[in-house]
């Protein structure tokens, strides 16, 4: 088996792809919206409930590649219950991780969260797949900014 492939598709990614967490839709969301990557056809739908500046609940569904699905799944586990402030930090950290040459430490985030995010660092070596990983995060951010249903595109 090719080593590059195993670095990209780490066990945790394959596992989340196969058994996504928080899959589905929540009832009575305060925010919802769709993200779409027209290049490969990734499409995810996020529903969430924000109360007291905190994401009380979040689910996602949709058709997408393993990278996107795992990223969505891991994202929901990280942001569920988190204050919006921390969501912002996570978003920035993730963005940096996927676009900058070498990011070893992500400041101001719990070590467990850092570790989960860091498994996406190798996606950087597959530039064409970066958007697959960032789509859920971009979608979440857009959805949070605007409780009205909207479509987000990574193109």
């Amino acid at each position, binding site marked *: *088996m*090719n080593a*590059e*492939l195993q670095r*990209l*598709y780490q*066990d*945790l990614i*394959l*596992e989340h*792809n*196969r*058994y996504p967490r928080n899959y589905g839709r929540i009832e009575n969301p305060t925010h919802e919206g769709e993200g779409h990557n*027209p*290049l*490969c*056809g*990734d*499409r995810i739908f996020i529903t969430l409930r924000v109360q007291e500046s905190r994401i009380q609940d979040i689910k996602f569904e949709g*058709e*997408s*590649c*393993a*990278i*996107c*699905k795992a990223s969505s799944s891991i994202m929901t586990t990280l942001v569920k219950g988190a204050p919006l402030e921390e969501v912002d930090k996570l978003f920035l950290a993730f963005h940096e991780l996927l676009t900058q040459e070498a990011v070893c430490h992500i400041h101001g985030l719990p070590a467990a969260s850092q570790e989960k995010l860091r498994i996406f660092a190798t996606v950087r070596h*597959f530039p*064409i*797949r970066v958007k*697959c990983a960032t789509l859920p995060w971009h979608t979440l951010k857009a959805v949070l900014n605007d409780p009205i249903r909207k479509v987000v595109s990574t193109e």
Partner: protein
Amino acid sequence: MDSFVIDARRLRADFPILSQKHLTGNRLIYLDNAATAQKPSRVIQSLLNFFHLKNANIHRGVHWLSQEATRLYEGARAEVARFIGAASEREVIFVRGATEGINLIAQGLRRVYFQPGDEIVVTVAEHHANIVPWHLVAQELPLSLKPVPLTCEGGFDQEAFKQALSSRTRLVAVTAMSNVLGIEVPVKEVADLARRAGVPILVDACQAVVHHPLNVQEWGVDFVVFSGHKLYGPTGIGVVYLRHPWGEKLPPYQGGGDMIRWVKWNESAYAPVPSKFEAGTPPIAEAIALAEAIRYIEEEVGWDFIQAYEKYLTDYAQESLQSVPGITLYGTARPKGAIWSFSIEGIHPHDIGTFLDQMGIAVRVGHHCAQPLMEWLGVPATIRASLAFYNLPEEIDALAASLKEAVRFFSFTASQS
């Protein structure tokens, strides 16, 4: 079949890129021919020769190089005209590619032919190049596309086609071969139906022209487009066939040098076809190299070989691919060109694409510029392996083996973690 394979192996020597190693150290297996074909040395050499020996601008020069360049460029037009069976080389226009070709026709028809509310009958398998140009027209002059479904196997459905034709139909515009499914649309039959309906017919021959000989007069069609880069020629060149007298009827697409008779400040008069449609400096070296590609195909490969061997490869691939667990092949109807689109249950095409790439195998994954077809098939994307006469059965074996490996790789089970 062995003699086929021997021939194919011999022909591979004409394509320097095929003996390249992939980034990963694997042997490169190029199965993305429907996106663009690789170029034989003769074609590359033709570009080189032109720029080394004959380069000049054409038509307006009395000097030797310019006359030589003109002779070669116009010679290329004659070659293409013969290749597609046009009645005259004046019916052949050089453009950048099929996409520009359809836009040229669409904008011309917008100006002198369409009426608000007109309908264009297409198949569900059209490439965006035969959809979006009509949307651009429709923004200025309301008209609509009427897609005709295929049979479940992707075959042509004559009844459905007949039903789609109505008094509002003003054009039939169909692909002769789907770039996603490989299935063929019987152009002659469709042209007959169009003729009976009293409307012209445009054929997107991008894929068809690569896989079998064609004759525009036998087809009985009005407009044909295709791209050079898929026909083993260089990028930047394509062909529009405008059956006489459409070239007279359509207004020029672009204005500029070489397409005029005279120019004054407030008015200009146009040159006769084909110049009328070739404003400015055309892709000179590219047209000449396209003619070389045509000669290569006819003289060194031969249509008989291409058709027989590609049919063999198509069957071989079908059998091979069907052995992959969870695979669905789209477009099993015949006749079809050597193109297979498929999906694998539970694995997104994009992941398969990356996986295969790491094995040195180039396939295309995505919507293949045919989103409405994806919707019709009910899939977000497919994986497409498109073959050329230089592909080998062992490359198909490698594809099938890698797909099986991918299935294992992505069926992560809890026990693994």
